[in-house]
């Protein structure tokens, strides 16, 4: 059975499968070409390709606030080295980080949300292939289709209302200042989940970032934010695509002045202050680059990488390229928010200052891991753009040249095992 989602929508397809208590694989492809496969046994969803993606479970657990990223990072290292034959979930359960039931619950919630998100598709394709249950693989979840459809339909109705208030993932909820502490007992009364969502809004983080910071389901967070808008406490700001982000944060000169240790080591502080250029750009080609951690090193890389990307052929404004990519990454890796985009370049000075002040201790590990992930993903995103604009070879050559230039000059105080010249080609799948 296959067809177009224009003619027959996903809920109807699922209802059909449920009624027939069918067993097989349902593949859905959206217009962008993203594919998701649902494993269905006797009319129940037992697994999905969405859950099978590499490092998916770990990210989910971190996003839901169940696992600290620093712990995930350790487990992943463990998985890469000692316990390479085991799956992440298995290691986590074996080492008492988490209970199996919790993993199943998280997967269940996640898969439900992903399926509900597909309910809204009005174009794309679907295909259902009957097959033996034994070929479906491990049953990670048991999702009954009927309740899923009921809840999904309800959510769809609500989504329509919510999307009028919150038009997309990148909009930024902003607080109005019109509150008094005395309203605490009436106008400012919130349920615990409402307060949790409210508490994540900072006027800079996109709604997607709020979802991740709240460690809650996307639908629930959107619903609450829409309600806060209705209550007149929050407004929704759309990102102005054409303006260069003017950072509300520390200016370059102030920052370098505020961190004498960094500037003393690099020796570029005074120069930076005079020229007014961002501190992350002060690599000045031949100098030694003393960084606190690989975060500093990756920031230098990203800032140089942006320069190597040719402008788009369409002649579009490219000034927000990095800002947009970084905003996306920071909304996923929420604790990377100490790194800012300042005048088209990343500024990791504040993050590095904290790492130094905390002596790279336990308390900063999550921030470090988030920042590291966000930076690696940014390098990856920029590389993809570079590939798109100048082709594989040129892009690879450009990044290799950058690494060859930077790597010998960079020294890091902490996490020295992180070798930028090894990790980046591995991530980007470029032959060293």
């Amino acid at each position: 059975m296959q067809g177009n989602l224009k003619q027959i929508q996903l809920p109807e397809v699922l209802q059909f499968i449920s009624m027939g208590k069918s067993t097989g694989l349902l593949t859905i492809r959206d217009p962008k070409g993203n594919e998701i496969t649902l494993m269905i046994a006797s009319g129940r969803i037992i697994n999905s390709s969405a859950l099978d993606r590499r490092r998916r479970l770990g990210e989910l657990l971190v996003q839901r606030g169940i696992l600290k990223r620093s712990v995930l990072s350790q487990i992943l290292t463990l998985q890469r080295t000692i316990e390479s034959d085991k799956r992440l979930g298995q290691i986590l359960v074996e080492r008492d980080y988490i209970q199996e039931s919790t993993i199943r619950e998280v997967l269940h919630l996640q898969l439900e949300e992903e399926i509900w998100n597909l309910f809204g598709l009005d174009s794309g394709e679907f295909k259902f292939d009957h097959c033996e249950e034994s070929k479906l693989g491990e049953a990670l979840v048991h999702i009954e289709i009927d309740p899923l459809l009921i809840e999904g339909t309800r959510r769809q109705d609500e989504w329509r209302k919510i999307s009028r208030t919150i038009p997309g993932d990148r909009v930024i909820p902003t607080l109005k200042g019109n509150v008094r502490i005395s309203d605490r007992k009436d106008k400012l009364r919130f349920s615990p989940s409402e307060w949790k969502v409210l508490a994540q809004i900072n006027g800079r983080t996109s709604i997607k970032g709020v979802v991740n910071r709240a460690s809650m389901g996307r639908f629930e967070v959107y619903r609450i934010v829409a309600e806060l808008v209705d209550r007149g406490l929050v407004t929704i700001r759309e990102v102005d695509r054409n303006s260069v982000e003017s950072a509300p944060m520390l200016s370059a000169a102030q920052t370098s002045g505020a961190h004498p240790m960094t500037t003393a080591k690099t020796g570029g502080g005074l120069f930076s202050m005079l020229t007014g250029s961002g501190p992350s750009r002060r690599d000045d080609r031949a100098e030694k680059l003393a960084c606190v951690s690989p975060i500093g090193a990756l920031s230098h890389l990203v800032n140089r990488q942006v320069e190597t990307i040719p402008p788009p052929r369409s002649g579009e404004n490219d000034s927000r390229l990095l800002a947009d990519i970084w905003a996306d990454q920071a909304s996923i890796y929420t604790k990377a928010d100490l790194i800012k985009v300042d005048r088209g370049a990343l500024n990791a000075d504040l993050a590095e200052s904290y790492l130094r002040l905390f002596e790279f201790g336990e308390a900063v590990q999550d921030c470090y891991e988030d920042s590291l992930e966000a930076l690696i993903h940014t390098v990856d995103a920029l590389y993809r753009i570079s590939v798109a604009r100048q082709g594989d070879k040129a892009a690879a050559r450009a990044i290799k040249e950058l690494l060859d230039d930077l790597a010998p000059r960079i020294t890091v105080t902490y996490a020295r095992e992180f070798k930028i010249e090894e990790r980046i080609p591995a991530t980007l799948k470029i032959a060293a």
Partner: protein
Amino acid sequence: MPGERVLLVDSSAAVVDMGKAVLEENGYKVTTASNGVAALSHPDLQNFNLIIVESRLDGVDGLETASQIRTDAETFGIPVLLLVPDDEIEHRASQSLRGANGFLGKPFSPSHLVIKAKETLEEQRLKAVSHQYLEASADHHMQELAEQKIQQAVEKKIQIIVERAIQSIVSIIDQRAKKEVDARVTALVSEKEQELVRITVQEVAKSMVEKMAEKKVAEAIDAVLMETTEKTIKRAADSMLPSLVRERVKESVENILPREVQIKVEKATQEKMTEFGEALINVINIEAKKAIPLIAKEKLPEIAERQVTVACEQRIPQLVTAEARGAVANELNMRVKPLMDQESKRIKNVVLIWVFALAILMCILVVVLMLMLPRLTAQG
């Protein structure tokens, strides 16, 4: 102190995560938020021990948050620590903290954060303790003052009450004394009245006695004349008659007088009941002048002042009775004795005349006998 609750507010997820981790390592219970609205609307805000808040926040900034926390009745006592970017500190130092207890530069080191939190909490505790002491001492002082004032007021009140009580007691005593005196005087007066009546009756009785005495004497003389001889007459004239008279008088006084007096008194009392008031007063005045001058006029007030009851119930009647009795006795003596003397004189005179007459008669009889006796003997 471990377990103290901290609300950490910073727009950066990284900063709140780091701060939370450090503070929790040091035993604090940490709640985090990214804006002032969330801080101000935390349902349990009043139960936090410390609020650390970034100066720059979306919507309601840190200063405004601090200021609002400081001015709310439920939260004003919670210390607030501002997180201020290092480059702003100089600027901030010259400005008001709008109710915040202090500030901490950003980026901060873990030890700096913990020390500052501890310091702020400690300061707050000391403040609370000193406040407590102050309150206690103020309480004590106030209590002392209040006690003093109350005592003064009570004393004053007591004085007034006592004065009033004394006044009322005095007036009650006065009233009672007056009443008692009145009652006593009335009693005395009625007694006096009775006495007076008795005296009057006695006077009447005396005249009766006189008449009766005359009659009796006459009878006695008749009887003596009839039954006794010269000796008898002589003896009677010498001794029997006066004693007889005395006896008779005594008898009559003892027997007739009380009865008569009683009748008279009853009658007089009945008659005089209506005009008792004025008459009594007069009588009292007169009698009082005579009988109880000291008691009624001088002694009574004095005694009443000291011991009204005693005076009224014991002394007055005694004195009055004694005086009255004396007065009555005197009165009787004065009036009865001369009468009796006079009577006995008269009786004596009458008896003497009769005796003289008898003597003459007997002489005549003797003379006659003597004249007749030789004739008789001659004839015989």
